[in-house]
């Protein structure tokens, strides 16, 4: 156990890959060759996919053995439980930088690991976006060609989806949340490490997809189109299956931590709103993602075992895939959005020096969105002809979501109302998010309307809409959250002087890009096209110029993250004078966070001097008493 780290993981992974590949070839192909000299082409196709799946399985299992993920379960079965010393070693005690490259259970290490992998994924996905926009700069561009273009569109989609799903709950849900609730670690530290290393093991599989045939399907991987695709599709399906397992594990872990491990006195009304947002997100993922996983399992069986779930001539249906996919697919957008908004809700009071406006409304709004989000999946299928009679009900549930969402807006502007707006970068992220999310929300109302959707569905309008929500709101929120918690996580201050240039350049570029995309969407340009008619030239050119601007801004921002992390000014333990618990512990945060667990007597939003219209006699500023 002590000798295992990422190097052994890669070595074992490669051994597993090769072993699985040869074993699969022997087990699956040999009997066929012995049976009849010429195997039918259909069977050969099944065998290819079967070998591809087995090989990927071999990589992940080998990698996980090599990192030490299985030593816990094996020792449990054998009855050799960890000693305290071993548990401390697993937590990364006295290992310096090495602990980031091991199966380390300390939640702060896992948080940093998630942060790094998220940034890598965002970087790759962003680069792909630049390539896509370059191809679309002018009509009839031959920059990428249809095969590459289609694969890159799918890769951009799935990489960004994975990255944005983990971008708040991974880094901040792991690093910040346990400290925020006064816990010494997560409820299941080993599952925590497992959830991260599962993702780390499967990212190479995902990135290999373009090199093993690609996936011409977009990230939705609709069947039966996916059934035709080369073995790159197996890489996609396999990634989703592993990712869903990781999400379920992380979801159970974070939810249990937040529900069961809040320190004494931290009642639900005294729990920071960020905790609600993270629990809503990971809790929603628990029932949602397995349906996505099931969709991919069935897809893999169709491709590798010869079942006919999505094959119409064998009794299957693409509607089955679409239903399973969107049963996950719509909750998933809230899995991405809610924690990012909750992070901004958490930091808004700090930068307005005011209590969160209507904490109750915020909780009701988050719960309302979560509850409704599982009842709206078919609005992605309005025009599929799947169940025309259900259009009305799904339109109603979809539009009702705008009520809790509107309530969240009220909480934001209510907290800003008469505040001391401290114009640091995290607060600027709140402003940028509000601007973008207003546009994303309103265009969502257009799309919720069935007749309007008949014109807009499958067009660039949809692409622009969801980028306004997922990028304009969620990613912007994440950038704000990163700057806010940067001092606690890295021990250094984020250089806002240069960082804000990166941030605002990216924001301006973002709005240019997607306003251009709204234009061509209204005019009827379909999504996911490598080429388009001359009439869409202006809008696409605008979009591409905007995209390059985003790229420049993001590069600056990334540079500032790296340079501040390595040589920024040393941060004090509470540079923002915030009142939540994570700012009351020293920086860097010691292993196990608290020597003595705190007792909570009030919520963490006790900012503000008593308002004259509420208590005219009491002028003394109230000290926050969260500790």
């Amino acid at each position, binding site marked *: 156990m002590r000798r295992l780290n990422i190097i052994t993981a890669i070595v074992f992974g490669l051994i597993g890959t090769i072993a699985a590949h040869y074993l699969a070839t022997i087990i699956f192909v040999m009997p066929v060759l012995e049976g009849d000299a010429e195997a039918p082409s259909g069977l050969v196709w099944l065998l290819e996919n079967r070998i591809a799946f087995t090989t990927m399985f071999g990589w992940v299992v080998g990698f996980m053995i090599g990192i030490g993920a299985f030593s816990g379960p094996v020792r449990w079965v054998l009855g050799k439980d960890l000693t305290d010393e071993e548990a401390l070693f697993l937590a990364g005690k006295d290992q310096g930088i090495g602990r980031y490259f091991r199966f380390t259970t300390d939640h702060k290490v896992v948080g940093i690991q998630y942060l790094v992998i998220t940034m890598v994924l965002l970087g790759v996905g962003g680069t792909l976006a630049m390539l896509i926009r370059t191809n679309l700069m002018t009509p009839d561009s031959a920059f990428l060609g249809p095969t590459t273009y289609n694969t890159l569109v799918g890769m951009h989609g799935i990489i960004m989806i994975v990255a944005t799903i983990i971008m708040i709950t991974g880094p901040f849900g792991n690093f910040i949340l346990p400290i925020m609730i006064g816990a010494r670690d997560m409820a299941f530290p080993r599952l925590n490490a497992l959830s991260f290393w599962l993702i780390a093991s499967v990212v190479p599989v995902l990135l290999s997809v373009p090199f093993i045939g690609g996936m011409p399907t977009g990230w939705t991987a609709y069947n039966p189109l996916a059934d035709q695709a080369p073995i790159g599709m197996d890489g996609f399906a396999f990634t989703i299956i592993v990712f869903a397992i990781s999400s379920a594990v992380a979801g159970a872990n974070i939810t249990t931590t937040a529900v069961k491990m809040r320190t004494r006195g931290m009642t639900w009304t005294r729990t920071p709103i960020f905790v609600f947002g993270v629990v809503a997100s990971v809790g929603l993922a628990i029932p949602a993602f397995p349906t996505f996983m099931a969709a991919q399992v069935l897809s893999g069986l169709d491709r590798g075992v010869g079942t006919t779930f999505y094959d119409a001539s064998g009794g299957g249906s693409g509607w089955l895939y679409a239903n399973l996919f969107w049963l996950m697919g719509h909750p998933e957008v809230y899995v991405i959005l809610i924690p990012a908004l909750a992070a901004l809700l958490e930091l808004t009071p700090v930068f307005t020096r005011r209590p969160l406006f209507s904490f109750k409304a915020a909780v009701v709004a988050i719960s309302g969105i979560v509850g409704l989000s599982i009842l709206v999946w078919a609005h992605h299928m309005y025009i599929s002809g799947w169940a025309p009679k259900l259009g009305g009900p799904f339109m109603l549930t979809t539009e009702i979501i705008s009520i809790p969402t509107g309530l969240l807006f009220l909480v934001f502007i209510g907290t800003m109302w008469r505040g001391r707006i401290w114009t640091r970068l995290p607060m600027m992220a709140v402003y940028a998010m509000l601007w973008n999310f207003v546009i994303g929300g309103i265009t969502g109302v257009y799309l919720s309307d069935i007749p309007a959707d008949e014109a807009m569905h499958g067009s660039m309008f949809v692409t622009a809409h969801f980028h306004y929500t997922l990028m304009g709101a969620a990613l912007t929120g994440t950038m704000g959250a990163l700057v806010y918690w940067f001092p606690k996580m890295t021990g250094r201050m984020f250089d806002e002087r240069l960082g804000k240039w990166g941030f605002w350049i990216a924001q301006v570029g973002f709005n240019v890009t997607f306003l251009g995309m709204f234009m061509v969407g209204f005019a009827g340009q379909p999504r996911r096209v490598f080429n388009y008619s001359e009439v869409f030239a202006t809008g696409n050119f605008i979009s591409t110029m905007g995209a390059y601007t985003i790229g420049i801004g993001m590069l600056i921002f990334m540079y500032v993250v790296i340079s501040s992390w390595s040589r920024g000014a040393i941060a004090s333990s509470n540079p923002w004078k915030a009142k939540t618990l994570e700012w009351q512990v020293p920086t860097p945060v*010691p292993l196990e966070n608290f020597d003595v667990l705190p007792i909570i007597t009030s919520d963490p939003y006790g900012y503000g001097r008593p308002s004259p219209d509420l208590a005219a006699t009491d002028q003394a500023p109230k000290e926050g008493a969260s500790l």
Partner: protein
Amino acid sequence: MTMTTEVHLHHDDPDTVGSRERFGVALLIVADIAFVFSLVFTYTYLRFLNTDGAWMPEGMVAAAPGETWLVTGAMILGLVVFALGARDLKAGKQPKFRRAAWIALVLSIIALVLQIQQMRNFNFSLGEKGYFAGTYSSSMMTLAGANAFHLTLTAIITLGMANRARLGKYNEPTSWQPRLATYWWLWVTISAVVVGLMTTFLVASPSLPSMGT
């Protein structure tokens, strides 16, 4: 970012840990419920659609439900034995739990073997070589496979339980650990019963074939 070295490990009391782990296991079971629900939805939805009349193409014989119920019967028995054993443990009767865990382990392995046997006995080969003929046979094989996967996990968990009981790891205060395994046993058995009822009573499609391609 160096750590202080003056760290000692804090231990929470078993009751707290137990309540935490019960909650976590329940959540993981919720995830598995969603997965099984997806497969049940697949079966019922494709049966309803009957695309191209290929739910059960002509000549296809439904699988005899006997084998399904044999597997399920073994699982129910295993659940009862294990749950009673866990109750005995809570009452302080460690040897009784030890015996129950071994019996449950044997039952889970028997169920697993029977399940694999059923998958080998399925006689669905009507399609092109290597392919299934229709969605009924595809669904049956997948549901059986999912149950075999459940049983493999159950056998591993029960093996751990039995072995750890042999080593004397379980007593009254730690009886919540076997209770966690009981939750899992309960869920996999329920899922087997639900799927068994579905595949026994909902076989032929109620719909006329939809148009061909």
